[in-house]
Every structure is written in structure tokens, then in C-alpha cells.
């Protein structure tokens, strides 16, 4: 049962005010053999910017890292690095944060013809510089001719960006099936395209490839969505783990964020953790361990709505 996207851009129910959300994201590796040495990097701390404020963040790692540090990457994301130098069988990372998310007023964005938002049409300056990070297709987001044809059905000449991207997002939602376990992060985009199924990262990559192929500036967004839906709303896909969607830049340098997995404009149900060119720039957690043997992590995400904020 798929719900059609609303044509009027009314904000999501109950989110005309900023919302306070609490996230708990835990990842656990249980090894077959002890790991004696492990190096890890994580993009786990929600961003703080005009749309959202991360009011608290705590990272708990077990075993206790002998060394850790944090930096900010090119895209403005917090990156955590840590080393585990003691032998261990279980490796657990728990990232907890409280975030205030403001509703976005998409009505004012992407009103001009989409061609005006293309990278080459942007005037020189700060916007263009930051846009350039996200403009070019990457190895994970290289479009084929067929994908571009597909995108051009929505991106007809002179059509307003907001309209076009909303329709593209809806078509991806309609034409592709959400199915966990059939794709991994190494699955090529062409396989997703041909099989017409995948998970949130795949749909985000697909949209990015199309938008960048058209010359637009588009970012990969990694984050979380509300686990427990509001009364009367369906439970969202991708709520049990890290989620991903995309943003496209309009002619004024403002982002329009859409979630093709749930066919939704990104509002106060979404928490943005990191922006990048593709998954490879911002994996929630990656590492190199000595020992261990093949393992897959147990991941649990819980996003709880604490309440509305007074504006």
C-alpha cells in the first residue's frame, strides 16, 4: 500500500514547531576470535546548523579506547577516531544524542527553473565553492544513459526544481522496491537499477547519480528517522538502523531534502548526522581490526520524540 505524496507542501503533521528528539544508536560486533588491535572511524554525531541543533552527544565505546580524537571534515561533519589496543571479543559503540530539529519551509525553495540551480549556472562565490563539493558524480553515483532518460521525464525544460525533484523522488519510491539483505554497500548502482530493489542508501545513490548527471548539486545525507511513529501514522522504513536520503541545492544555495525510501519531504521526523558525496564519505562506523574473523554487526537505533519546543 503506497501513499501518494501530497501535492500541496503542507508540513508533516504536528511539526510546525521545533521538535526535540533523542537518539540511541548502538552497534555491536561479537567476534569468533579475539581482536588484538582495532582502528575505527565514525560519523555519528548529528550536525548542528541552521536547521538543527545537537544539544548533547555522548559516545560510549567498549572496550575503552586507549586513544581517541575528533575532527571536522570538509563537509562540516564531526569525525571520531579511536584505537582499541587491548584484546577483546566484543566491540560495542553506543552513540546517544539529543537534537532539536526545526521544520523546513520548503515552499520558498526551488521555485525557479531547475536549470538555474545547475552547478555551472551558479554565480561564483561561497555558495558555488560549497556546491562544488557535491557537484560531480562519484564512483558510487555515476549515472548511465538510461538513468538520465528516466530523470528527464521529471526534469522537463524550465520546470521548477521543487516540482521536478518531488516527482522524481515519488517515482523512485513507486518504481523501486525496498528490500533489505539483497544489496550491500559494494553493490553497483547498475544492479540496483536493473533489479529495481534496494535499501535507503541505494535509493539515495540512485537519485544523486541522476541529479548530478543533470548538472545539479546533490548531497548524500546520513541520519536517523523517528522509530515510533506518531499516532495514526505508518511506521517508516529504515527506522531500525542508520537511514539515508538526499538533498538537492536550489539556485539560492538552499537545500531541499527528500527521502525517496519513504516518499517524504524531510521534516522534523529526520535527524541529519552527516552530509557527503556518497556513502563512502560518511559511513556511520568503519574500522580495521586484527583478528576477529568475519562478522556482521548487530545494529539498533531508537529515535524518541521528547516533545515540541517553543519557538
Amino acid at each position: 500500500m503506497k501513499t501518494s505524496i501530497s501535492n500541496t507542501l503542507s508540513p508533516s503533521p504536528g511539526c510546525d514547531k521545533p521538535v526535540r528528539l533523542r537518539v540511541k544508536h548502538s552497534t555491536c560486533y561479537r567476534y569468533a576470535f579475539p581482536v588484538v588491535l582495532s582502528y575505527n572511524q565514525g560519523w555519528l554525531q548529528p550536525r548542528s546548523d541552521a536547521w538543527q541543533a545537537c544539544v548533547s552527544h555522548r559516545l560510549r565505546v567498549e572496550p575503552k579506547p586507549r586513544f581517541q580524537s575528533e575532527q571536522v571534515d570538509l563537509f562540516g561533519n564531526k569525525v571520531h577516531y579511536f584505537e582499541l589496543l587491548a584484546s577483546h571479543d566484543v566491540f560495542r559503540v553506543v552513540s546517544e544524542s539529543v537534537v532539536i530539529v526545526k521544520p523546513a519551509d520548503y515552499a520558498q525553495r526551488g521555485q525557479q527553473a531547475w536549470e538555474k540551480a545547475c552547478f555551472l549556472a551558479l554565480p561564483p562565490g561561497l555558495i558555488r565553492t560549497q556546491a562544488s563539493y557535491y557537484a560531480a558524480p562519484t564512483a558510487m553515483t555515476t549515472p548511465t544513459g538510461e538513468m538520465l532518460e528516466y530523470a528527464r521525464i521529471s526534469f522537463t525544460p524550465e520546470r521548477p526544481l521543487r516540482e521536478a525533484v518531488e516527482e522524481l523522488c515519488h517515482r523512485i519510491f513507486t518504481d523501486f522496491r525496498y528490500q533489505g539483505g539483497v544489496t550491500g554497500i559494494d553493490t553497483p548502482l547498475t544492479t540496483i537499477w536493473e533489479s529495481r530493489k534496494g535499501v535507503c542508501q541505494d535509493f539515495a545513490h540512485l537519485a544523486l547519480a541522476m541529479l548530478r548527471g543533470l548538472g545539479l548539486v546533490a548531497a548524500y545525507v546520513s541520519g536517523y528517522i523517528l522509530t515510533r511513529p506518531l499516532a495514526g501514522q505508518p511506521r517508516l522504513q529504515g527506522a531500525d538502523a542508520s537511514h539515508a536520503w538526499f538533498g538537492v541545492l536550489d539556485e539560492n544555495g538552499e537545500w531541499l531534502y527528500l527521502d525517496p525510501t519513504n516518499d517524504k519531504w524531510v521534516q522534523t521526523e529526520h535527524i541529519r548526522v552527516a552530509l557527503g558525496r556518497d556513502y563512502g564519505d560518511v559511513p556511520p562506523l568503519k574500522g580495521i581490526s586484527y583478528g576477529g574473523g568475519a562478522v556482521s554487526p548487530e545494529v539498533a537505533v531508537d529515535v524518541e520524540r521528547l516533545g515540541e519546543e517553543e519557538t
Partner: protein
Amino acid sequence: MSTSELDPEQPTLDLSGVPYRPPSGVYDEMVDDKGELRQGWSRLSGYLGKLSHTEITRLQRETSRRLKEQGVYYHVYDDPEGARRTWKLDPLPLMIPETEWQTIEKGIAQRARLMSVLLSDIYGAQRSIKENWLPPEVVFQNPGYLSTCINAVQQPLTIYAADLARGPDGRWWTLSDRTQGPSGAGYVLEARLVTRQVLGHQANGLAPAPLAQFYQHLKRHLAALSTDQYREPTIVLLSSGVGNEVYFEHAYMAAQLGITLVQGDDLTVRQGNVYLKTINDLQKVDVIIRRVDDSYCDPLSLRSDSMLGVPGLLQAQMLGKVGLANPLGSSVLESPAMLPFLHLLCRKLLDQDLVLPEVASWWCGQPKELSHVLTNLDAMVIKTVDGKAPPVFGASLTLKQKDALKARIQSRPGWFVGQQCLSFSTVPVVGEQGLLPRHMVLRGFAAGDGREYDILPGGLARVSADANTFVVSGQQGGSSKDTWILRSSGSIKDVLRLRPPRQRRTSAAILTSRAAENLFWLARYNERTESLLRLIRAYVKRLENPYDFGFESDLEVLKALRPMLSTYCTIERDRLIRMENVQSIVLNHSRMGSVSYNLSASIRSAYTVRDLWSGDCWRMVEEIEELLIYSEKNWALSSMERFTQPFLGALLGFWGAAMESMAEEQGGLWLELGRRIERAVNTLAAVVNTVPELEHDQEGALREMLLEAHDGLNSHRRRFGTDYSYFNVWQHLLLEPGNPRSLINATSHIGEVLEQLNLSPKAGLSILQKQHLAIETALRLADANQWHSADLVKQVLAPFLLDIQGRLLQLGQSIENQYFKHALPVTRLR
């Protein structure tokens, strides 16, 4: 080049009756357009003029011979001739007068400085992008730009190289900048050495600017990267290993600079610091010369499939805890897309005009430039932004290919760069028909601290494989030349800016755990081969005349050989050892335990620690390798003697050269340890395997063979005559301390090495020493009288030897576990 392609109007220069005719329309380095010699060439051409044609070609052969002798290699990927090939060097140097060099030198230093400033800008304030001096896409769309490194590349570009070419107008142009880990500076040194040797005293009147000082400057600049200025810095050279095309140079530079040659898994990051895994402990590394591409250096943060890197290395750089020459993230500067913008950047960042501008280049990310490139494709070389795709010459394409290329460029303009196809200058090289003109590119080198750069007074001139191509890659069969900067007569001014070297020493090269392991195994393989060859020699002798040795027939010899041979390789139980099997035991390199298999493994180990060998040692390694190749081609069982003897000679020669030239702490101990353990293991195994056959050995023929195979026949005869009684044989082979080939002799040498490896002798014996003492004691207490009959051999000696064998294998395992710290398999988490 055939003569028909030559312009008859083009002036020529006769050298010893052979005309040298550069093609028209290009600049020739030696001859001007009137056919006159250019400045700086008169002495060299005067010398060449006196030589006959044969003498000139002899110069080339002499150069090749010396390079081969010194093991100067260059790896050609997918080469049918094998992985290694002797580096190609032309004996005639490129001459550059000092006045002209001063401009080049200034230009290289300026570009190095510009690149260093630009590096810190694009990873820092990004002024060049904000001010619109450099289009942002040129930087951020290049996969070489490391997005996690923002505000975290504070180090200068220590090493820089520029590829320069001279156009028809005689001006020098920059083709590309080399900013990651430029190779070639080591080959330059070797080229100088060989060129001077080959030209000999004839060239002594010429005084090219000396090179040595540049390498001192380089080491000083490297040392300055250390964060701890109060301690002698530990500097290492990070190589990708023997598979790299210029691995020779990695080893050579490490040896020249007196630093440690390492590979990724020799290093480990702990708490953001980089450490070297040595035999005894982890030692902090202060500076790394990096000869591995950016993306392969850190499997955690960069390419996760890389086996060449060190997890956490990028972090160590970002935290400023290790100096990298050059920093990770510098590959983006090499992009051909940068070239068109360097004019403006040089003016803005350094307030200067470029001294050595680039060959006209157009980045297709701009509409005007794109259409220029598309309309003038015939005059263009097309490159990609990441610099990884091979350049495509527009003129060499068919119409169809051109259309396809245009479509590719149009689909992603920002990914392509067009560069004007420049006719590089020509320079004479020695060919079979005399001197031939070849196109040339000069690589110049700089070392500095980001502000001041020292320039190598010379460079690597690389020439094309034939007259019609501008491709100068060694992979494409091109060769190289030394470059001589000739001081103007009477000038005493040094081309180098001399500075008093700071009183700062760097620590001596450290023996890594990997190096020790390679030495240990090399010695074991060599020793194993030596024993096997002796056994084969003894066998062949008997096969020719079985009766002389107390065998009934050659069939009996074959039967007797099997148990001993099974010490070295698997012999199928129900098959006789036929002659063709012997050939396979010697030459089948895929047969585990064969001579060829062992020696290939040994040579590979030797090459992995190429930096540790003296010239003489390396020559013996080469000789062993040549013998292998020769034997494979000329095999005949009848002349087996002709093969075994030179092999044994070369192996003994290697051993002698190694022990005479390698300090114990620099590896001699590990060679000794490997050799003695292998000898003890083999002697034991040969006896254990032969024991079941001894009851049929009434004549002692088998015992004689056992002695001969262990090089003990002669010493046995001097002592006991031809009395091969059990007592005599066991006493001599196992228990006689004075016999250098006896088991007990080998074990006591092992004891001596273990004593030296014990770092705290005051605390008593190490665990290894204790394990050894048990073996040594058992052997010393043993009495050969108790093993004097076939029955006793079976009942007493056999279990005794099995016990010793078990302990010895245990000791070998303990040594490996303690010193060679095998890394556990890697698990990627995601």
C-alpha cells in the same frame, strides 16, 4: 628511424664518419639549425669523434654491463622476460650550460614553493578558491583531494619534481608537477656513477656539478619534519615492496640516506604515533618518505582494500605526530587540471611570474576552453583530472575514435584537460647504427621546507623508445640519461647554495622484524639447497658406476636415495626415482622443495632486503639467478656435475661475502641462525629417514652416501679411513664437535646466536636459550657406542633422534613467534 623520414636539407653532424641527423622542426640539444655544436657539447663530441663506430656502441654495452652488475633494475609490468629488467641508460649525458641551468633551477624552486603554498591553502583557508583564482571543481572533484584532511595538512611539500620539455623555440616548458613521492632521484645518482665510469678519463676534463650535496640537503629537510627536535629522528622509507616498478630505487635511496626501508605492515599506529616493528620492540618513527600513492597509504581512512598501507596513518599526519614527505593529500596538486591556473596563482600567492610556465593546457570545465579543445583535438593530448588515465594523442585517432572521445568529453567536461601537443627537443642516443635523435623529457628535483628549496644540479633525462613518439615512459621501452650541468670555465661558484649542515644526526638504519625474517629464511633456503645439491651429486656419481660404491645395480642406488631425498621434497612412495624426476627435483620451480623452488624463494627474500647487501653479496645473488636460468636452458643429466658445482660455488661464495660484509646487528646473526637451524634440521631428518633402510646396508654403502651428502666424507676418511662402522659414522655425523658439519656443531652455533639475542643476560637464560639447552645437553650426554648395531639404531638411536627433532622444530617455531610477530588476519568493519 629510417633515412627516408629525414629531411635532406636538415644539417647533419658527422661523428666518426656517422652522420647525426636530428629531424627538422624540433630543437636538438646538441646541434643547432646550422649544424653547429651547441655550447657545452664540444668536448663530448670531440671525444666521440675520435672513437670508431664499434667503440661507440661498446660504450652502450659497457653501460648495460655495469648496470646489470650493480643490480639496477626497473620493473616492466606484464613483461614476458620476467619481473625484473636491467634499467636502460644511455652512456651520453645531456649537457646543460650553467647559464641556462640557472633559469631552470629558479623555475623548479619557484614551482616547488608554489605547490607547497597551494597545498596548505586548499586544505586550509582556501583563499585561492574563495577569491576565484582556482575553480573549486578542479580541487574538490579530484578524488585525490582528501575530504577528511581539511585544516589538517600543516606540513610543507618536502620533495618536488617537475617534468620539463623544450619546445622548438628552445624554451623550457613544464609538462607536469610531481608532488606525491616523485621517483628518479636515486636513478640520477646511479646514472652519474655509471656514466662517469664508462666515459672514463675522457670526460674528466668536464666538471659537471656534483650531486652528493643534494642528498644531504634532502636528509636535512626530512629530519626537520620531526616533531621532536631534541632527539635523533628515526626516518623510514615506505615502499610498496618488490612488486613496484622502481623498487630498486626505494632500496637504493634507503641505503644512500642511511634510513630504514619499510613496507606498510612494518609500521603500526599507536595512540596517533607511528612505530616501527623491530626485532625487540616498537620504535617511534618521526619521518616517513612515502613512495606509496596517497590512496593506498591508510586502509582505515582511504582505500580499504589496500594491503600496502598503515591503518591510522592519516590520523597520525593530521595530529601532526609524524612527518610525511610528502603529506597525504598532495596528489591533487599533480592534476593536469591545475596547470592552466598556476599563472594566476603564482602571481597571487607568491607575487611573481612563473619562470617555467606549463605547456599550454585547457581545463574543459569552462565552456570556452571546452570548445577550444574540441575544435583543435588534432593538436591536443587529452588527459583526465586525476592524471591516472593514459594520455590520448588527438592526432593519432581515427575519425570514429575522435567522435567517441568528443562525446566522452562533452558528457563530463570537468573531468578532462587538453594539452597542446608539443614537439619535444631531441638528443643523441647511442644506437646500433650510430647516434640517433630521440625526444626527451627532463625530470628535475627539489627538496625544501616550503619556503627555501635546494635543487638537484642535474636530473633524469628520459628519452623516447623511437624517434616518432613523445612518450618517454620506461614502461614503453624508453631509456634514461644523466644530466650534466657544466660550469662556465673559470667560475668557482657552486651551483648549489651551500649552507653549513646543522649538527644533527639521524639514527642509523634499524633492522626491521621483516628484514630479520627474510634473512633467516634466505639462509634456511640456501642451506637446504646446498644439502640437496650435495645429495644429488652423490647420487649421480653412484648412478654412473653403482658397483664401485657397493651397490648391486643402479636400481638399488635409486632405492637407497629415496629416504634421504624425502628430507627435501615429497617423493611418491610407489615410484622409483627416475632421471626425469631428478631433473624435476632440480629445475621444476613449482615443485615444493626443488632446487629451483628453494632458490627462487631465497632470491625473493634477498630482493626484499635489497638495501642490506654489499655489492659483492648482490653479485652472488645475481650469479645464482643466472645459473638457474642457464641450467633450465641447458639441462642434461650426464653433465649433472657441471650444474651442481657452480651452484655450490655460488652459494658458498654468497655465504662468505655476506658474513664478511654484514654486521651482526645488521642481520648477520639472523643469517647465521637460519643457516644453523636448517642444517641441524636437515641432518636429523636425513638420518631419521634413512634408519629403516640401514638393516640392509651391510656394506656401508648407504652410510657412505649419508656422509658424502653432508660434506663429511673427506673429514671422516681422514679420521677413520673407510671404516663406516656405526660408531664412526654417528660419532662423526652427529656428535663430533670438531666436525663443522656435525649436528652438535650446528646446535652449539645456535646457542651462541641465542646468547647474543638475549637482551638481559643478567636475568638468566631466555626461554629460547632454555629450549636450546635441553637439546644441547641431550646431545652432549649421548654416546655413539650405544648405537653401534642395526638393532640399536632402530631401538635406541631412532627414538632419541625423533625426540631431538621435535625439540628443534619447537625451537624454530618459538623463534618465529617471538621475533617475526606475524600479523593476524585483517577484518574490515563496516
